[in-house]
């Protein structure tokens, strides 16, 4: 799968400032079509309306967490192939293992920098 800067990206986070930060970093990396959602439920609704090329999601959100969103996405035949990066403050080993087993493509721990985000996105699309 090639990295296409024109593809729509969905950023999921309940913290508006974090959405703004990731949106700005993605713009700096060359992405133009960036959408956002405040939690897993809203993200899932948006994903059913539109095909996103990449989902970047926080873990800890109400009512649906990023972990639940990931599992829902992977269990939905229409969405299961969507690249999914978890960007979270949840940095316990069991979180990383659970996310990997649920099918996450990459995992970024907060706080992070633009280089890390860029590297992980590139890694997802080079696999």
């Amino acid at each position, binding site marked *: 799968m090639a990295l296409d800067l024109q593809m729509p990206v969905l950023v999921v986070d309940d913290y508006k400032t974090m959405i703004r930060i990731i949106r700005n970093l993605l713009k700096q990396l060359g992405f133009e079509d960036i959408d956002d959602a405040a939690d897993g439920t809203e993200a899932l609704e948006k994903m059913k309306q539109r095909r996103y090329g990449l989902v970047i999601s926080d873990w800890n959100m109400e009512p649906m967490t990023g972990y*639940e969103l990931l599992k829902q996405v992977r269990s939905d035949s229409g969405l299961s192939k969507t690249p999914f990066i978890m960007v979270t403050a949840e940095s316990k080993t069991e979180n990383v293992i659970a996310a990997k087993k649920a099918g996450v493509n990459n995992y970024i721990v907060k706080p992070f920098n633009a280089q890390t985000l860029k590297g992980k996105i590139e890694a997802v699309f080079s696999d």
Partner: protein
Amino acid sequence: MANMKQENVARVIDFLEQNKNRDGEVSLTDVMHLAEVMSGSMHDFLTAVQPAVTEELTLIGKEISRMKDEISQLRANDMTGNKIPDAGRELDAIVEATEDATNTIMEAAEEIMGADTSDAEAYQELVSNKMISIFEACTFQDITGQRISKVVTTLNYIDERVSSFIEHLRIPEELDAAIEESEEDRRKRELILHGPQHTGEGVSQDDIDALLTDVQADIDKLFD
């Protein structure tokens, strides 16, 4: 009743014998007389047990007084009425201040990023002005630092009083009531919600990268 003397038992028996044919005609005087006989018969018993009972009651009274003193030292009303709400207000103010500062800094950065660079002089002036805005916004750190100190002082105040209360009441750890898992706790456990870790406690990005590779290798083995 074992200590009741025979002569007192005899007085009660005599009284009952004398009045057994009254056919229910009992006057207040009769009742008073019976009470006098009965209390007289109990006198020796009460005299024997009174010091022990008095001593026990005195000890219980002292213990209740000591507990009242310990509870008053807790200053629970001050904690729930003033200290804890004040700490909550300080934390709310910290959240507000950091959010305001973040927004100011991000707005400045966004304006610089989106500015027209064709006019070098105008661009330089814009950058200088926005840099000053960023420096000004960073003053939040001093104020939030002071607010956090106040919250820490409150936590220490509560810790000291509760620790002293536990110590004086000699409450052993094993007597702590079992905590029932709340709905929120259950959600956190099931959805693996730990929140941010302190420095050195969680795993680093490098650890995560290595872990993902290892986990992937383990998953791949399942399909070999």
